[in-house]
Protein backbone atom coordinates (compact mmCIF):
# COMPACT_ATOMS: atom_id res chain seq x y z
CA UNK A 1 0.00 0.00 0.00
CA UNK A 2 1.41 3.37 -0.97
CA UNK A 3 0.76 6.08 1.61
CA UNK A 4 -1.05 8.47 -0.75
CA UNK A 5 -3.67 5.86 -1.63
CA UNK A 6 -4.03 4.42 1.87
CA UNK A 7 -6.90 6.74 2.66
CA UNK A 8 -9.21 7.95 -0.08
CA UNK A 9 -9.23 11.68 0.58
CA UNK A 10 -12.66 12.55 -0.86
CA UNK A 11 -14.25 9.87 1.33
CA UNK A 12 -12.40 11.08 4.40
CA UNK A 13 -13.16 14.74 3.74
CA UNK A 14 -16.86 13.98 3.16
CA UNK A 15 -16.97 12.12 6.44
CA UNK A 16 -15.21 14.97 8.23
CA UNK A 17 -17.63 17.45 6.78
CA UNK A 18 -20.65 15.34 7.65
CA UNK A 19 -19.55 14.59 11.19
CA UNK A 20 -17.89 17.89 12.04
CA UNK A 21 -14.17 18.54 12.44
CA UNK A 22 -14.30 18.20 16.21
CA UNK A 23 -16.11 14.90 16.06
CA UNK A 24 -13.83 13.25 13.51
CA UNK A 25 -11.14 12.90 16.16
CA UNK A 26 -13.44 11.00 18.45
CA UNK A 27 -14.39 8.72 15.57
CA UNK A 28 -10.79 8.08 14.58
CA UNK A 29 -9.91 7.31 18.20
CA UNK A 30 -12.78 4.82 18.36
CA UNK A 31 -11.46 3.22 15.19
CA UNK A 32 -8.00 2.97 16.76
CA UNK A 33 -9.53 1.30 19.80
CA UNK A 34 -11.64 -1.17 17.87
CA UNK A 35 -9.47 -2.22 14.98
CA UNK A 36 -6.53 -3.79 16.90
CA UNK A 37 -9.09 -5.81 18.91
CA UNK A 38 -10.76 -6.95 15.72
CA UNK A 39 -7.41 -7.84 14.15
CA UNK A 40 -6.52 -10.04 17.11
CA UNK A 41 -9.98 -11.63 16.98
CA UNK A 42 -9.33 -12.35 13.33
CA UNK A 43 -6.00 -14.00 14.10
CA UNK A 44 -7.53 -16.05 16.91
CA UNK A 45 -10.39 -17.15 14.70
CA UNK A 46 -7.89 -18.22 12.05
CA UNK A 47 -5.87 -20.31 14.48
CA UNK A 48 -9.06 -21.96 15.76
CA UNK A 49 -10.37 -22.29 12.20
CA UNK A 50 -13.58 -20.63 13.43
CA UNK A 51 -15.02 -19.45 10.11
CA UNK A 52 -17.95 -17.64 11.67
CA UNK A 53 -15.88 -15.55 14.06
CA UNK A 54 -13.38 -14.96 11.26
CA UNK A 55 -16.07 -13.66 8.95
CA UNK A 56 -17.58 -11.41 11.64
CA UNK A 57 -14.25 -9.80 12.56
CA UNK A 58 -13.33 -9.25 8.91
CA UNK A 59 -16.77 -7.82 8.25
CA UNK A 60 -16.45 -5.28 11.06
CA UNK A 61 -12.98 -4.21 9.95
CA UNK A 62 -14.20 -3.80 6.40
CA UNK A 63 -17.25 -1.70 7.22
CA UNK A 64 -15.54 0.80 9.51
CA UNK A 65 -12.41 1.07 7.38
CA UNK A 66 -14.48 1.89 4.32
CA UNK A 67 -16.22 4.65 6.26
CA UNK A 68 -12.89 6.43 6.78
CA UNK A 69 -11.83 5.92 3.19
CA UNK A 70 -9.34 3.13 3.93
CA UNK A 71 -10.60 1.47 0.80
CA UNK A 72 -7.68 -0.80 -0.09
CA UNK A 73 -7.49 -1.98 3.48
CA UNK A 74 -11.24 -2.47 3.44
CA UNK A 75 -11.05 -4.48 0.22
CA UNK A 76 -8.53 -6.82 1.76
CA UNK A 77 -10.81 -7.25 4.79
CA UNK A 78 -13.69 -7.94 2.44
CA UNK A 79 -11.72 -10.71 0.71
CA UNK A 80 -11.13 -12.26 4.13
CA UNK A 81 -14.79 -11.90 4.99
CA UNK A 82 -15.68 -13.82 1.83
CA UNK A 83 -13.20 -16.55 2.70
CA UNK A 84 -14.87 -16.88 6.09
CA UNK A 85 -18.29 -16.93 4.52
CA UNK A 86 -17.24 -19.67 2.11
CA UNK A 87 -15.44 -21.53 4.91
CA UNK A 88 -12.11 -21.70 3.12
CA UNK A 89 -9.49 -20.34 5.48
CA UNK A 90 -6.60 -22.38 4.00
CA UNK A 91 -5.01 -19.51 2.12
CA UNK A 92 -6.05 -16.84 4.61
CA UNK A 93 -2.94 -16.68 6.73
CA UNK A 94 -0.90 -14.58 4.27
CA UNK A 95 -3.75 -12.14 3.77
CA UNK A 96 -4.28 -11.77 7.50
CA UNK A 97 -0.59 -10.88 7.86
CA UNK A 98 -0.90 -8.25 5.11
CA UNK A 99 -3.95 -6.85 6.82
CA UNK A 100 -2.18 -6.57 10.18
CA UNK A 101 0.79 -4.92 8.53
CA UNK A 102 -1.45 -2.66 6.48
CA UNK A 103 -3.18 -1.39 9.59
CA UNK A 104 -0.05 0.36 10.81
CA UNK A 105 0.03 2.50 7.70
CA UNK A 106 -3.69 3.16 7.87
CA UNK A 107 -3.31 4.26 11.47
CA UNK A 108 -0.43 6.61 10.68
CA UNK A 109 -2.16 8.28 7.79
CA UNK A 110 -5.48 8.60 9.62
CA UNK A 111 -3.73 10.07 12.63
CA UNK A 112 -2.15 12.74 10.44
CA UNK A 113 -5.33 13.47 8.55
CA UNK A 114 -7.46 13.83 11.66
CA UNK A 115 -4.95 16.29 13.13
CA UNK A 116 -4.72 18.27 9.93
Amino acid at each position, binding site marked *: MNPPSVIDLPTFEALKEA*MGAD*YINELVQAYFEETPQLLSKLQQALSKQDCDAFRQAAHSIKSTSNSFGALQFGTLAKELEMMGREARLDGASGKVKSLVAGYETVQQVLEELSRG
Partner: protein
Amino acid sequence: MANSSPGRLLVVDDNKVNRLLLGRSLEQQGHSIEMAENGRQALEMMHAKPFDLVLLDIEMPEMDGYQVLEKATADLKLRDIPIIITSALEELNSVVKCIEMGAEDYLTKPVNPVLLKARIGASLEKKRLRDQQRDLIRKFATSEVASDLETSGFSLGGKFVEATAMFSDIRSFTTIAESQTPAETIELLNTYYTLMFEAISDQGGVVNQMVGDGLMAIFGAPLVQADHCERAVKASLDMIDMIQLLNVDRLAQGKAEIRIGIGIASGQVIAGYTGTIRRATYTCVGDTVNLAARLESHTKVVGKPILIDGTTQSALSSTIKTEAEGPFQLKGKTVEAQVFSVPLDQKM
Protein backbone atom coordinates in the same frame (compact mmCIF):
# COMPACT_ATOMS: atom_id res chain seq x y z
CA MET B 1 -37.87 16.95 2.37
CA ALA B 2 -40.19 17.31 5.30
CA ASN B 3 -38.43 17.91 8.57
CA SER B 4 -39.36 15.09 10.86
CA SER B 5 -39.94 15.93 14.48
CA PRO B 6 -37.28 14.56 16.82
CA GLY B 7 -37.56 11.14 18.37
CA ARG B 8 -35.87 9.06 21.03
CA LEU B 9 -33.71 6.59 19.16
CA LEU B 10 -31.69 3.58 20.17
CA VAL B 11 -28.65 2.66 18.09
CA VAL B 12 -27.56 -0.95 18.47
CA ASP B 13 -24.24 -1.99 16.99
CA ASP B 14 -21.31 -3.94 18.40
CA ASN B 15 -18.89 -1.75 16.48
CA LYS B 16 -18.14 1.50 18.28
CA VAL B 17 -17.25 3.37 15.09
CA ASN B 18 -20.56 2.39 13.54
CA ARG B 19 -22.43 3.47 16.67
CA LEU B 20 -20.69 6.83 16.73
CA LEU B 21 -21.19 7.40 13.00
CA LEU B 22 -24.85 6.62 13.11
CA GLY B 23 -25.41 8.33 16.43
CA ARG B 24 -23.75 11.52 15.23
CA SER B 25 -25.80 11.67 12.03
CA LEU B 26 -28.99 11.18 13.98
CA GLU B 27 -28.07 13.78 16.58
CA GLN B 28 -27.39 16.23 13.80
CA GLN B 29 -30.92 15.58 12.61
CA GLY B 30 -32.20 16.58 16.03
CA HIS B 31 -32.95 13.20 17.56
CA SER B 32 -31.90 12.12 21.00
CA ILE B 33 -29.74 9.03 20.92
CA GLU B 34 -28.81 6.20 23.20
CA MET B 35 -26.55 3.34 22.27
CA ALA B 36 -26.29 -0.36 22.99
CA GLU B 37 -23.37 -2.66 22.18
CA ASN B 38 -25.30 -5.88 21.78
CA GLY B 39 -28.78 -7.32 21.59
CA ARG B 40 -29.12 -8.18 25.23
CA GLN B 41 -28.27 -4.65 26.31
CA ALA B 42 -30.65 -3.26 23.67
CA LEU B 43 -33.59 -5.28 24.99
CA GLU B 44 -32.85 -4.20 28.55
CA MET B 45 -32.84 -0.57 27.48
CA MET B 46 -36.03 -0.98 25.46
CA HIS B 47 -37.73 -2.33 28.55
CA ALA B 48 -36.40 0.45 30.76
CA LYS B 49 -37.17 3.45 28.56
CA PRO B 50 -39.65 4.31 25.85
CA PHE B 51 -37.95 4.55 22.46
CA ASP B 52 -39.59 5.75 19.27
CA LEU B 53 -37.29 3.79 17.01
CA VAL B 54 -34.46 1.26 17.13
CA LEU B 55 -31.63 0.99 14.60
CA LEU B 56 -30.42 -2.55 14.80
CA ASP B 57 -27.27 -4.22 13.52
CA ILE B 58 -27.69 -7.89 12.60
CA GLU B 59 -24.39 -9.44 13.58
CA MET B 60 -23.52 -8.90 17.21
CA PRO B 61 -22.09 -10.97 20.04
CA GLU B 62 -24.21 -12.11 23.03
CA MET B 63 -27.50 -11.63 21.22
CA ASP B 64 -27.75 -10.87 17.53
CA GLY B 65 -30.24 -8.78 15.60
CA TYR B 66 -32.47 -11.76 14.76
CA GLN B 67 -32.86 -12.64 18.41
CA VAL B 68 -33.68 -9.04 19.30
CA LEU B 69 -36.29 -8.92 16.56
CA GLU B 70 -37.79 -12.19 17.64
CA LYS B 71 -38.05 -11.11 21.27
CA ALA B 72 -39.21 -7.57 20.53
CA THR B 73 -41.96 -8.58 18.11
CA ALA B 74 -43.28 -11.17 20.57
CA ASP B 75 -43.28 -8.70 23.44
CA LEU B 76 -46.50 -6.71 23.88
CA LYS B 77 -44.57 -3.82 25.38
CA LEU B 78 -42.01 -3.62 22.63
CA ARG B 79 -43.67 -4.78 19.48
CA ASP B 80 -44.91 -1.35 18.44
CA ILE B 81 -41.42 0.15 18.43
CA PRO B 82 -40.28 0.23 14.82
CA ILE B 83 -36.95 -1.45 14.18
CA ILE B 84 -34.77 -0.47 11.25
CA ILE B 85 -32.07 -2.94 10.31
CA THR B 86 -28.64 -1.52 9.54
CA SER B 87 -26.63 -3.91 7.43
CA ALA B 88 -23.89 -4.12 4.88
CA LEU B 89 -24.99 -4.20 1.27
CA GLU B 90 -24.05 -7.84 0.75
CA GLU B 91 -26.24 -8.96 3.61
CA LEU B 92 -29.39 -8.51 1.56
CA ASN B 93 -30.60 -12.03 2.32
CA SER B 94 -30.40 -11.33 6.01
CA VAL B 95 -32.33 -8.11 5.50
CA VAL B 96 -35.14 -9.97 3.78
CA LYS B 97 -35.27 -12.37 6.71
CA CYS B 98 -35.44 -9.43 9.13
CA ILE B 99 -38.25 -7.74 7.24
CA GLU B 100 -40.15 -11.03 7.27
CA MET B 101 -39.59 -11.21 11.02
CA GLY B 102 -41.19 -7.80 11.48
CA ALA B 103 -38.49 -5.20 10.93
CA GLU B 104 -39.87 -1.94 9.63
CA ASP B 105 -37.18 -1.06 7.11
CA TYR B 106 -33.45 -1.33 6.45
CA LEU B 107 -30.46 0.87 5.75
CA THR B 108 -27.16 -0.21 4.29
CA LYS B 109 -23.88 0.69 5.94
CA PRO B 110 -22.11 3.02 5.52
CA VAL B 111 -25.31 4.94 5.95
CA ASN B 112 -26.18 7.71 3.53
CA PRO B 113 -27.34 10.70 5.61
CA VAL B 114 -30.08 11.72 3.18
CA LEU B 115 -31.52 8.23 3.03
CA LEU B 116 -31.15 7.96 6.79
CA LYS B 117 -33.16 11.10 7.33
CA ALA B 118 -35.92 10.01 4.96
CA ARG B 119 -36.25 6.51 6.41
CA ILE B 120 -36.13 7.67 10.02
CA GLY B 121 -38.65 10.41 9.31
CA ALA B 122 -41.07 8.01 7.64
CA SER B 123 -40.77 5.42 10.40
CA LEU B 124 -41.25 7.95 13.16
CA GLU B 125 -44.30 9.31 11.39
CA LYS B 126 -45.80 5.83 11.10
CA LYS B 127 -45.06 5.20 14.76
CA ARG B 128 -46.82 8.44 15.71
CA LEU B 129 -49.88 7.48 13.69
CA ARG B 130 -49.96 4.07 15.34
CA ASP B 131 -49.62 5.65 18.78
CA GLN B 132 -52.48 8.00 17.98
CA GLN B 133 -54.56 5.08 16.79
CA ARG B 134 -53.90 3.22 20.00
CA ASP B 135 -54.86 6.29 22.05
CA LEU B 136 -58.08 6.51 20.09
CA ILE B 137 -58.85 2.86 20.71
CA ARG B 138 -58.18 3.46 24.40
CA LYS B 139 -60.50 6.43 24.38
CA PHE B 140 -63.38 4.87 22.57
CA ALA B 141 -63.11 1.27 23.60
CA THR B 142 -62.96 -0.06 27.10
CA SER B 143 -59.57 -1.03 28.44
CA GLU B 144 -60.50 -4.73 28.14
CA VAL B 145 -61.36 -4.39 24.49
CA ALA B 146 -58.27 -2.29 23.86
CA SER B 147 -56.02 -4.87 25.47
CA ASP B 148 -57.83 -7.66 23.65
CA LEU B 149 -57.19 -5.79 20.41
CA GLU B 150 -53.56 -5.33 21.34
CA THR B 151 -53.00 -8.98 22.16
CA SER B 152 -55.04 -10.64 19.47
CA GLY B 153 -54.62 -7.97 16.85
CA PHE B 154 -57.49 -6.61 14.88
CA SER B 155 -59.62 -9.16 13.11
CA LEU B 156 -63.28 -9.06 12.37
CA GLY B 157 -63.80 -12.73 13.18
CA GLY B 158 -66.23 -13.89 15.83
CA LYS B 159 -66.44 -16.77 18.28
CA PHE B 160 -68.89 -18.40 20.64
CA VAL B 161 -68.41 -17.46 24.27
CA GLU B 162 -70.32 -17.97 27.51
CA ALA B 163 -71.23 -14.52 28.70
CA THR B 164 -73.86 -12.34 30.32
CA ALA B 165 -75.51 -9.57 28.34
CA MET B 166 -77.05 -6.51 29.95
CA PHE B 167 -79.32 -3.82 28.58
CA SER B 168 -80.18 -0.67 30.44
CA ASP B 169 -82.27 2.28 29.50
CA ILE B 170 -83.74 5.41 31.07
CA ARG B 171 -87.51 5.30 31.57
CA SER B 172 -89.57 8.05 29.90
CA PHE B 173 -86.44 9.72 28.71
CA THR B 174 -88.27 11.63 26.00
CA THR B 175 -90.53 13.24 28.60
CA ILE B 176 -87.50 14.22 30.67
CA ALA B 177 -85.74 15.60 27.61
CA GLU B 178 -88.78 17.70 26.71
CA SER B 179 -88.88 19.26 30.17
CA GLN B 180 -85.33 20.62 30.05
CA THR B 181 -82.89 22.43 27.76
CA PRO B 182 -80.85 20.43 25.23
CA ALA B 183 -77.69 21.32 27.16
CA GLU B 184 -79.20 19.88 30.34
CA THR B 185 -80.17 16.72 28.48
CA ILE B 186 -76.67 16.17 27.13
CA GLU B 187 -75.25 16.86 30.57
CA LEU B 188 -77.66 14.36 32.09
CA LEU B 189 -76.66 11.73 29.52
CA ASN B 190 -72.99 12.34 30.19
CA THR B 191 -73.48 12.01 33.93
CA TYR B 192 -75.62 8.93 33.43
CA TYR B 193 -73.05 7.26 31.16
CA THR B 194 -70.19 8.14 33.49
CA LEU B 195 -71.99 6.55 36.42
CA MET B 196 -73.09 3.47 34.48
CA PHE B 197 -69.62 2.93 33.00
CA GLU B 198 -68.15 3.08 36.46
CA ALA B 199 -70.59 0.55 37.91
CA ILE B 200 -70.13 -1.80 34.94
CA SER B 201 -66.37 -1.63 34.66
CA ASP B 202 -65.98 -1.98 38.43
CA GLN B 203 -67.44 -5.44 37.94
CA GLY B 204 -65.29 -6.16 34.90
CA GLY B 205 -68.05 -5.58 32.38
CA VAL B 206 -67.60 -3.91 29.03
CA VAL B 207 -70.00 -1.31 27.68
CA ASN B 208 -70.11 -1.92 23.95
CA GLN B 209 -73.07 0.09 22.78
CA MET B 210 -74.56 3.42 23.69
CA VAL B 211 -77.60 4.51 21.80
CA GLY B 212 -79.48 7.54 23.02
CA ASP B 213 -80.33 6.76 26.61
CA GLY B 214 -79.72 3.03 26.32
CA LEU B 215 -76.63 0.97 26.71
CA MET B 216 -75.53 -2.58 26.26
CA ALA B 217 -72.84 -4.27 28.31
CA ILE B 218 -71.13 -7.67 28.25
CA PHE B 219 -69.68 -9.60 31.15
CA GLY B 220 -67.36 -12.55 30.53
CA ALA B 221 -66.07 -11.36 27.15
CA PRO B 222 -63.61 -10.48 25.76
CA LEU B 223 -62.01 -11.35 29.08
CA VAL B 224 -63.23 -14.69 30.37
CA GLN B 225 -64.80 -14.42 33.82
CA ALA B 226 -66.21 -17.53 35.49
CA ASP B 227 -68.61 -15.47 37.60
CA HIS B 228 -69.96 -13.24 34.84
CA CYS B 229 -73.60 -13.75 35.95
CA GLU B 230 -72.91 -12.59 39.48
CA ARG B 231 -70.81 -9.66 38.26
CA ALA B 232 -73.58 -8.46 35.96
CA VAL B 233 -76.20 -8.58 38.72
CA LYS B 234 -73.90 -6.81 41.19
CA ALA B 235 -73.22 -4.15 38.57
CA SER B 236 -76.96 -3.68 38.02
CA LEU B 237 -77.50 -3.14 41.75
CA ASP B 238 -74.66 -0.61 41.79
CA MET B 239 -76.17 1.12 38.78
CA ILE B 240 -79.49 1.56 40.56
CA ASP B 241 -77.65 2.81 43.67
CA MET B 242 -75.87 5.40 41.59
CA ILE B 243 -79.08 6.53 39.93
CA GLN B 244 -80.59 6.99 43.38
CA LEU B 245 -77.65 9.16 44.40
CA LEU B 246 -78.00 11.13 41.19
CA ASN B 247 -81.69 11.60 41.94
CA VAL B 248 -80.95 13.08 45.38
CA ASP B 249 -78.93 15.67 43.51
CA ARG B 250 -81.52 16.24 40.84
CA LEU B 251 -84.37 16.63 43.37
CA ALA B 252 -82.29 19.20 45.25
CA GLN B 253 -82.01 21.14 41.99
CA GLY B 254 -85.74 20.86 41.37
CA LYS B 255 -85.25 18.47 38.46
CA ALA B 256 -87.24 15.35 37.64
CA GLU B 257 -85.99 12.03 39.00
CA ILE B 258 -84.80 9.48 36.50
CA ARG B 259 -85.49 5.75 36.57
CA ILE B 260 -83.76 3.00 34.69
CA GLY B 261 -84.69 -0.53 33.70
CA ILE B 262 -82.11 -3.30 33.39
CA GLY B 263 -82.44 -6.67 31.66
CA ILE B 264 -79.84 -9.41 32.11
CA ALA B 265 -79.51 -12.79 30.39
CA SER B 266 -76.70 -15.35 30.27
CA GLY B 267 -75.65 -18.07 27.87
CA GLN B 268 -73.84 -18.56 24.65
CA VAL B 269 -73.25 -15.44 22.60
CA ILE B 270 -71.34 -14.76 19.41
CA ALA B 271 -68.71 -12.19 20.24
CA GLY B 272 -66.34 -10.35 17.98
CA TYR B 273 -65.56 -7.15 16.22
CA THR B 274 -68.17 -5.96 13.81
CA GLY B 275 -67.98 -3.18 11.34
CA THR B 276 -65.27 -2.37 8.88
CA ILE B 277 -61.53 -2.03 9.26
CA ARG B 278 -62.05 1.72 9.61
CA ARG B 279 -64.68 1.60 12.26
CA ALA B 280 -65.48 -1.41 14.32
CA THR B 281 -66.89 -2.22 17.68
CA TYR B 282 -66.64 -5.23 19.94
CA THR B 283 -70.09 -6.64 20.23
CA CYS B 284 -72.10 -9.71 21.08
CA VAL B 285 -75.11 -11.08 19.28
CA GLY B 286 -77.36 -14.08 19.62
CA ASP B 287 -80.46 -15.25 21.46
CA THR B 288 -78.99 -14.44 24.86
CA VAL B 289 -78.49 -10.85 23.82
CA ASN B 290 -82.02 -10.61 22.41
CA LEU B 291 -83.41 -12.06 25.63
CA ALA B 292 -81.57 -9.44 27.72
CA ALA B 293 -83.02 -6.68 25.53
CA ARG B 294 -86.53 -8.10 25.89
CA LEU B 295 -86.15 -8.44 29.66
CA GLU B 296 -85.10 -4.82 29.82
CA SER B 297 -88.25 -3.68 28.06
CA HIS B 298 -90.25 -6.11 30.21
CA THR B 299 -89.21 -4.21 33.36
CA LYS B 300 -91.84 -1.63 32.38
CA VAL B 301 -94.55 -4.31 32.46
CA VAL B 302 -93.45 -5.85 35.76
CA GLY B 303 -92.67 -2.52 37.36
CA LYS B 304 -89.37 -3.75 38.79
CA PRO B 305 -86.05 -2.22 37.74
CA ILE B 306 -83.91 -5.36 37.37
CA LEU B 307 -85.01 -8.51 35.57
CA ILE B 308 -82.78 -11.53 34.95
CA ASP B 309 -83.29 -14.83 33.15
CA GLY B 310 -83.24 -18.29 34.73
CA THR B 311 -79.71 -19.07 33.57
CA THR B 312 -78.33 -15.99 35.27
CA GLN B 313 -80.37 -16.64 38.41
CA SER B 314 -79.19 -20.25 38.79
CA ALA B 315 -75.55 -19.17 38.61
CA LEU B 316 -75.82 -16.61 41.42
CA SER B 317 -74.33 -17.20 44.82
CA SER B 318 -76.65 -17.34 47.80
CA THR B 319 -75.68 -13.79 48.80
CA ILE B 320 -77.88 -12.34 46.07
CA LYS B 321 -81.60 -12.44 46.69
CA THR B 322 -83.97 -12.88 43.75
CA GLU B 323 -87.72 -13.20 43.39
CA ALA B 324 -89.40 -15.45 40.85
CA GLU B 325 -91.65 -13.50 38.51
CA GLY B 326 -92.90 -16.72 36.94
CA PRO B 327 -92.65 -17.79 33.35
CA PHE B 328 -93.24 -15.08 30.79
CA GLN B 329 -94.01 -15.31 27.16
CA LEU B 330 -91.55 -12.76 25.85
CA LYS B 331 -92.22 -11.02 22.57
CA GLY B 332 -90.70 -12.93 19.66
CA LYS B 333 -89.81 -16.00 21.73
CA THR B 334 -91.44 -19.37 21.21
CA VAL B 335 -90.48 -20.84 24.58
CA GLU B 336 -91.47 -19.20 27.83
CA ALA B 337 -88.63 -17.75 29.83
CA GLN B 338 -88.23 -18.04 33.56
CA VAL B 339 -87.90 -14.50 34.82
CA PHE B 340 -86.59 -13.31 38.16
CA SER B 341 -86.43 -9.85 39.60
CA VAL B 342 -83.60 -8.65 41.79
CA PRO B 343 -84.90 -6.66 44.77
CA LEU B 344 -82.98 -3.45 45.47
CA ASP B 345 -82.89 -4.14 49.16
CA GLN B 346 -80.45 -7.03 49.33
CA LYS B 347 -80.21 -7.10 53.12
CA MET B 348 -81.27 -10.52 54.30
